[in-house]
């Protein structure tokens, strides 16, 4: 059992996503701390992958630049270890199946446990394949976060029943990236989830403005934002932390009481 539920204790949750090592780990450290100090309830840390098939151009670019800068899975674990000296909010990883598989699932989960990472989002690990990692993850108290998509339909109940930590609702078809409009009936998906589990659920993909975040959080237990934050880091580079702080504050204010 992980500590992820803690993230949903202070009103609706705000979950920012940050790619580790973009543009470098020192900046990632500053940005993560800025987010944690300004209202982030949980942070999703991306471990870069060379071929991130679920990502749009913004996060793809961050992955490629981070890898070009020499980031590795081992360096990410060392970084989180250092981060944990003062960052106490729940953390999860976001990465692709091959990064975990290649590291060795057991070794990977053991290090998550050691560094206090309570969960992992693996976009290319659907329900049918999760047993490959979930048994060993459970042993180390790491939740494999289930994703539910606009196309999940008859699969929502099945996925919800075995969900742990929180459920990641994918708001839209396609890949990550900011969108002007989200058309999926999120309320309908959440109703089906609630009938099957008490695990909290947060909505991600396509959210960038406080209004969108508030709307998605009002329909669920929280909002997840990735590309919009990566864009800020891309724009301000090593000086991004105060801008991320300001952005995180505005989103948390928008979602907390909706």
């Amino acid at each position, binding site marked *: 059992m992980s500590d992820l539920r803690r993230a949903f204790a202070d009103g609706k949750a705000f979950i920012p996503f940050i790619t580790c090592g973009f543009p470098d780990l020192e900046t990632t450290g500053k940005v993560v701390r800025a987010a944690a100090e300004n209202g982030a309830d949980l942070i999703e840390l991306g471990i870069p*992958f060379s071929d991130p098939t679920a990502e749009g151009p913004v996060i793809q670019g961050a992955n490629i630049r981070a890898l070009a800068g020499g980031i590795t899975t081992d360096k990410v674990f060392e970084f989180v270890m250092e981060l944990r000296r003062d960052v106490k909010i729940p953390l999860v990883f976001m990465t692709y199946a*091959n*990064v975990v*598989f290649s590291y060795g699932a057991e070794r990977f989960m053991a290090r998550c446990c050691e560094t206090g990472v309570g969960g992992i989002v693996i976009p290319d690990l659907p*329900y*049918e394949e999760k047993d490959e990692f979930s048994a060993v993850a459970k042993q180390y108290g790491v939740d494999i976060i289930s994703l539910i998509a*606009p196309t999940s339909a008859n699969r929502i109940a099945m996925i919800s029943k075995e969900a742990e930590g929180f459920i990641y609702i994918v708001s839209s078809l*396609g890949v990550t990236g900011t969108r002007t409009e989200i058309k999926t009936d999120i309320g309908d998906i959440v109703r089906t989830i609630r009938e099957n589990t008490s695990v909290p659920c947060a909505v991600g993909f396509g959210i960038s403005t406080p209004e969108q975040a508030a709307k998605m959080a009002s329909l669920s237990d929280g909002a997840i934002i990735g590309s919009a934050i990566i864009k800020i880091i891309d724009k301000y580079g090593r000086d991004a932390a105060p801008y991320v702080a300001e952005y995180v504050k505005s989103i948390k204010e928008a979602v907390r009481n909706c």
Partner: protein
Amino acid sequence: MSQSKGRFGIHGGQYIPETLMNAVIELENAYEHYKNDPDFNRELTDLLNNYAGRPSLLYRADKMTADLGGAKIYLKREDLNHTGSHKINNVLGQALLAKKMGKTRLIAETGAGQHGVATATAAALLGMECVVFMGEEDTKRQALNVYRMKLLGADVVPVKSGTATLKDAVSETMREWTSRIDDTHYCLGSVMGPHPFPTIVRDFQAVISRESRAQILEAEGRLPDAVIACVGGGSNAIGSFYHYIPDEGVRLIGCEAAGRGIDTFETAATVNTGRIGIFHGMKSYFCQDEYGQIAPVYSISAGLDYPGVGPEHANLHDTGRAEYVPVTDDEAVNAFEYLSRTEGIIPAIESAHAVAYAMKLAPTMDKDKIIIITISGRGDKDCAAIARYRGENIYE
């Protein structure tokens, strides 16, 4: 409890985003229904025979046999199919299936452009929309095929991400499919990706060995001693091997693109240099670094320039039923020229990898032995690139 499907030994599976799961389940259900549907099979056979020109010849290569001085060599002539390669076998099957499923739009990845051309062709014939994703690097190497696809009414999208080659084209086609599923079928070109693709593509390509087995029995009264085919993702190879898998006496040899050599980083020989991993929807062998980052691969052949291999091949390697050998750019180019001069057949540079290995193997075998080489495609598309390789600049 979840249940993983589509395994070949430990390989295969369905490692894809949740967004696509119902799409592959729908595809699997449709395929399970139509593969036994007499009307569907009649229609497909009619297209294969009267449109694509099947059955393809099994040609006895007497001059090559005499020149190499060993085993008797036959060529399975997939290059004679309409559109010039084996790709049409799979595409006609999938396009017809997609149409039955009510899809109106085909999307596809392509490396050398042969699968893209075949998909654009089927889309034109069946009145479907078509978008082909092709690595920007490959659009330059295979400019003629880009023009052919456009001529056939397809949109060609150059993919700039990553290494701008086949793997990036696959990633981008998957991304496109995630964003538009309702009316769109992903017409995957090789025996790779998530279940059910490796099975569907293999079944549609198995026509190669179904024919060649009957043809060699007719010609020689016995089975061959070796079947040789080139392997990128592995669709022509699995099609060439499939009906011989139970015949233990038939050696099955897949020729991987070694590029500048398997002891260099400029290679695409996945089974010879890769490790087990999870990518593009499947567990299989991949060229990757110690942290699982997919390696940039290299081959002179845009069609074999892929860092993975189909899961059924991975399993045939694990069980020892098939052998996978590396063939370098140099060896392939020599074979390309050799077959052209010796038999008057210009093979695709992909297929030339299989010819190259046969040139090494045949002289070591007795004259009463038989080798079948699959010529997966024709080499017209490669002439400019090979000329450049030889230092001659010609304009297409």
